[in-house]
């Protein structure tokens, strides 16, 4: 205390506005947050250690369970890193199938984060509406892959299941349904006076800070930085597809949501292009030779760049598997965003980086 008018306020690890456990110790003066101290580690499951005890096929199942919203990005990047270590080339059709699964998960993830923002500002009708629209994507995942969250679309060497013509038609139909609804949602988030007053100019992350902190994904793009692995180092079929990297220059929570919603259109277009251009053929390649080797792979998850490193020793159990997730890079930006913010806005700012605590703590 030391004679000042500040007091400390705990936020978390279990808190209504936080989806996952993380603990903020806020030093508050009236309603203004003067200092933020963040402690995490509540959902550490020792997954990297577990990965070193399982073979490369079992690990595909393990890494998909690192987190739920970007589960596909983990199995995707993991499959890529193993393929790199084993010097494999996957069939053309599998490259497109992987993009379809990834972009479907991206839309669902972005809509989820957008909905949670409405929940935090107490706008329950909007929350329910966005979640209802997201349900179209959930239905699609369940119909095509048989599961709502962990869709197990990828395996080492290609894709786990093919998408036949009937399913392609169904996917296109769902996309037709969801597109006008996302447009409506984007309009609400852009122009609704209540959402606008609460989020515009909130949690500022100026471009200089964003670059210095090395933030990734929608957080970087919301600060006007053109940073997207899909464009910077094309993988799977992204090199052959047309899409734009969405950026906003507002540097605030409002811009980040706009980036996410506008990215949904790009994702819709990517899925359509994939279905249109997908060649016939195999969906899985035979396994390569296990040698002493190391490899890296990176992809653009909904939250930003996911990076995987593997070292193999000639057996089917990796000697080391290590991954770095986007939220790890974005966490530090919170201290900039929360500078002198309101107690009411702490949860809102935290949500604006779309934190994935389970991913970060592994």
């Amino acid at each position, binding site marked *: 205390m030391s004679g000042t008018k500040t007091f400390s306020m705990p936020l978390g690890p279990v808190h209504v506005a936080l989806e996952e456990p993380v603990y903020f110790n806020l030093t508050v003066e009236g309603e203004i947050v003067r200092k933020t101290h963040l402690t995490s580690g509540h959902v550490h499951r020792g997954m990297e250690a577990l990965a070193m005890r399982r073979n490369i096929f079992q690990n595909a199942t393990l890494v998909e369970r690192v987190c739920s919203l970007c589960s596909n990005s983990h199995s995707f990047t993991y499959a890529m890193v193993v393929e790199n270590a084993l010097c494999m080339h996957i069939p053309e059709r599998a490259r497109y199938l992987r993009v379809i699964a990834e972009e479907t998960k991206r839309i669902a993830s972005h809509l989820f984060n957008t909905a949670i923002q409405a929940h935090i500002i107490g706008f*329950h009708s909007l929350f*329910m509406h966005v979640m209802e629209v997201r349900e179209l994507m959930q239905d699609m995942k369940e119909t095509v892959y048989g599961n709502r969250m962990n869709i197990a679309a990828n395996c080492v060497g290609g894709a786990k299941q093919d998408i036949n013509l009937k399913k392609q038609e169904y996917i296109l139909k769902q996309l037709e349904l969801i597109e006008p609804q996302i447009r409506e949602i984007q309009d609400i988030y852009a122009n609704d006076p209540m959402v606008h007053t609460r989020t515009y100019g909130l949690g500022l992350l100026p471009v200089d800070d964003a670059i210095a902190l090395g933030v990734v994904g929608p957080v970087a793009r919301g600060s006007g930085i053109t940073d997207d692995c899909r464009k910077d180092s094309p993988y799977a079929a992204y090199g052959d597809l047309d899409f734009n990297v969405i950026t906003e220059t507002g540097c605030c929570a409002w811009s980040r949501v706009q980036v996410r919603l506008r990215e949904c259109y790009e994702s819709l277009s990517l899925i359509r292009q994939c279905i249109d251009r997908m060649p016939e053929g195999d969906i899985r390649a035979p396994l390569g030779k296990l040698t002493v080797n190391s490899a890296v792979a990176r992809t653009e998850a909904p939250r930003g760049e996911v990076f995987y490193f593997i070292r193999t020793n000639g057996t089917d159990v990796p000697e080391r598997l290590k991954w770095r997730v986007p939220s790890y890079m974005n966490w530090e930006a919170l201290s900039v965003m929360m500078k002198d913010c309101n107690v009411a806005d702490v949860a809102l700012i935290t949500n604006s980086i779309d934190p994935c605590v389970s991913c970060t703590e592994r």
Partner: protein
Amino acid sequence: MLDTILAILHMCIFPGGVFALAVALFFKALDRRIAARVQRRVGPPLIQPVLDIAKLLTKETLIPRTAHRAAFIMAPVLAFTGMAVCAAFIPVPGVYSGLTNMGDLLVILYLLPIPAIALMLGAAASSNTFSSVGFSREMLMTLAYELPLIMILLAVAMLVGKETGVGAEFSLANILSYQAANGSLGFHPVMLPAFVAYMIFLPGTMGVAPFDIPEAEQEVLEGPLLEYGGPLLALYQIGSALKTFVVLGLGVALFFPGTLCDFWPVNLVWFVVKCFLLMLVTLTVVKAATGRFRIDQAFWFYIKFPAVLALISLVLVWWL
């Protein structure tokens, strides 16, 4: 002696106490159902608010060791009794003309902030960080919405007083009889800004979106109510339900007290229907269509809109 017994009956059975609580809980159930339908949910059964309170009453009372025991227990009792008494002052046009015939508008003005004050007292007594943030927010909100309320009541009193030649009329019975003779104040062009201001005052005083700031679940975890549970929380909820009846009933009495006929059950139902419509417009629909303001935004909102609207009515009454 008979007067005292009658007054107590008015506080406990009609229109305060049992009647007000039944109406308010029924309204709360309807409110939840309608909000659920807006969000394409089914919503709880109509009996749910009663079940909620019944459940709370059977629970154990837990008091934090660091809390100030007496104040912690007194606060919900104060909120409940304050509102039960206040409900007895609300006239039901054509059925019941209010507890006294003199200055009851002033009494209501003094009794209305009691739940908010009790909430602050409870928050301060429960020695919890979130409660104290809730405390400061509740205080700011109270300051913000009490100002327009005072001006609205003053505008009504002065208008009626001017017309009847007594200066300012603070008797609700007289305000009602004036309106019965000269038409409802809600249709009076000068009083229109005051009525709009009253409609904006309602969500603030009831603490519903976009003004559910002191008890914001996502920000301060129910704030002042955080440490409360069991019967004490039930008392707060009953107090809050009674307050719904009081503020809606007061709105109807001040602006639309018209009756349909001389048969009292019809008037009673008509009164309840009008209260419901007022709730539907000011609480349910607004709640379903908005998020939550930040406390500073809400404070300035109240100063900018309802306070100015009420002031316009007040000045117009003064000049014309």
